[in-house]
């Protein structure tokens, strides 16, 4: 019988193993995660199966197994704005990933060029992104104002008699709302730009020697090398699109078919005089699940291209 000498786990002079050391370092973060993230999520999950409104605000009451899905039944089958909100939020999530990321990537590629005055352009580009989304909502409210905003006069160049408020037209209101956030890609652009800058210069030089032009370099070297970052910012853009709230609150308050999931939660929990926490948490649960789906979908989409390359 062969005796296998397994290497003993290393201990330092204090007698602490490496694993214990790691656990000790992770413990505070894990503790904070459990208290501030995990516990609330579990609470949201549990109370979404409870009667919890103004009648029992401090003591949520479990519906029981027979009526377990009461809140979800109300949200899916009775609440008038849920499906509209889910549809809109999903669209905003898709638009976030499909429109915002290409725009941000193009801008980041442009900003990465070593041209005179580019540093100044970078700063100027970032300035609007320092404005909060709430303030942005107010600014866009002025832009879309039919009396003195600049959008209606532009529309009138093509349609002389147009006088309606664009925020009250079903369809255009959704587009107007999307425009209020989709082009503000400052943070995303910065993240991509940082990664582009980190691409080793030698690789570019080698590509140049092989005859690859700037555009070819971007397409075949830069973008594949920053794919990890692109995936991360796509998840961030899609989730922030899905969670859109401020724009809805400031621009339409849900009129003309512009409800979002976050706004629906507010409506149920705050605006409703019946303080419907249980139902709001059912929507929040759907929002959490949707967030997970978004991450999975984006990961799946980004995992497709390497396989293609292999084939």
């Amino acid at each position, binding site marked *: 019988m062969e005796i296998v000498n397994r290497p003993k786990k290393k201990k330092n002079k204090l007698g602490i193993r490496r694993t214990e050391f790691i656990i000790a370092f992770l413990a505070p973060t894990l503790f904070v995660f459990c208290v501030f993230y995990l516990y609330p999520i579990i609470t949201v999950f549990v109370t979404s199966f409870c009667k919890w409104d103004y009648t*029992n*605000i401090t003591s949520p009451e479990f519906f029981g197994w027979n009526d377990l899905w009461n809140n979800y039944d109300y949200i899916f089958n009775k609440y008038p704005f849920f499906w509209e909100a889910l549809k809109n939020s999903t669209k905003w999530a898709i638009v976030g990933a499909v429109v915002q990321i290409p725009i941000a990537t193009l801008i980041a590629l442009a900003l990465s060029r070593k041209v005179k005055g580019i540093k100044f352009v970078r700063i100027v580009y970032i300035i609007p992104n320092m404005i909060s989304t709430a303030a942005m909502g107010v600014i866009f409210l002025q832009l879309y104002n*039919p009396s003195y905003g600049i959008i209606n006069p532009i529309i009138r160049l093509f349609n002389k008699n147009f*006088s*309606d*408020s664009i925020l*009250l037209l079903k369809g255009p209101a959704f587009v107007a709302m999307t425009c209020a956030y989709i082009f503000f890609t400052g943070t995303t652009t910065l993240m991509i730009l940082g990664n582009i800058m980190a691409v080793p210069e030698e690789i570019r030089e080698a590509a140049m020697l092989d005859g690859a032009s700037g555009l070819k370099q971007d397409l075949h070297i830069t973008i594949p090398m920053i794919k990890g970052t692109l995936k991360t910012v796509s998840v961030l853009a899609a989730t922030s699109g899905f969670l859109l709230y401020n724009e809805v609150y400031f621009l339409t308050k*849900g009129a003309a078919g512009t409800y979002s999931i976050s706004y629906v939660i507010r409506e149920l929990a705050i605006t409703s005089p019946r*303080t419907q926490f249980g139902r709001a948490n059912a929507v929040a649960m759907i929002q959490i699940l949707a967030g997970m789906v978004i991450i999975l979908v984006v990961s799946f989409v980004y995992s497709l291209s390497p396989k293609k390359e292999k084939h």
Partner: protein
Amino acid sequence: MKRKLVSVLLVAAMGVSVLAGCGGSNPVKTDEDKKAAVSDENVLEFYHGYYQDKSEWAAAQVMRDIYDEFAKAHSDGTVTFKPIPVENRDDIVSAKVAGGSFPDMVDVGGAGVPQSAISQNLVYDLKPYIDENKLQDAVGLNYTQHDMDGHIYAVHDQIESRGLWYNSSIFEKAGVSVDALKDWNSFGEAMTKISALNDGTYGYIGGQGSSYIVNSIMASTENGKKMLESELTEEIINSDEFANAFKTAAKLDQANGSDHTTDDNGNLMAEFNTNGKVGVLFNGVWNASGIDASLVDSIEPSLFPGNIAIASAGGGLAVSNKMSDEKTKLALEFIKYMTSKEVQEKIFTEVQANPCNTTVDLNALAQKSGDAATIKLAKACSEVNSADTVVIDMNYTWGPDVDKAIINALMECAVSGTDVDTRFESLKKELLALIG
């Protein structure tokens, strides 16, 4: 070795910090801590929404002065009165109620005292005190409108009184007489004439304002008025009264145009009060103080067609049910003070609001002051107080979510070409779900 020792010490320090941060306070209290705790128990905290700077809104300073005077007058008592101006009083109330408590005292805004606070028995019933001290006239409309099955949970020192304001110069220019405000048909015709002037002037500010049209049309019948004074039910949603009120308002809005529509009157109010571009503004009596000096002679108050006014006690002063006798006594004393004739006169002349106390002679006070805005305010208040029909704002009885759904539907109907009947059917479904 040194590096590892430092690492161990670092982890230990982090652990201690986390435990210290999450742990309870030190059980061994110093004398100063004890003193502070005792003094906390003897402080009556009063949250109110008059936080604005004097330059921003002079009335806020007047209200703060009124509170400070009371605090000063009771400074030698066992309980200290502490007014706290906050921008988010409703959020504070919501957060406290969610945690099973209620502020010592609060001037509740928004949709009034939360039902969740009442259902938890967190709010003091003021009715016995009002009856005992014969304050019925002093609290005025609060006594009837805030009566909930024989309990009164709030007293608002000001009455939210709404009618309409019209620009007589624009009326004259458009060839419209004040008689146009007698019924909604002639009102609609008048608005069309004003829009036809084609000089940038338009009929009225719709959206939030249009919800008051619905409110007042409902109140024009006895049955409709009863509906407004009760909770929203399926029967009300399917009633002819509601259908007629909504559709009339929606058609008026469509003729008026969606470009003159807002969910918050404040967004467009300057067009009426300062620019003189709007024929009619549906706003409260307090609008008197917002009229630009150049338009004071043109702008006049009036009631809704049918001699109807919307008056609501709204939120108001609410007291916690979980306080010591001393604190409760001081809180009740404060309510008596706020509804006293002396303070109510100040609220009228300096805050420019409709006081709740029915014994205050508004016209006499206005004449005495000689101020044009106050005289206009007195006129508006008197009209509201003597209207044939005075009805509550549906926002308070049907709830802000219902009110908002109605406003959204009206705003959408203002878009040219919108089918009002179809939108109304969809609104009915929304409302049925909201009350479900």
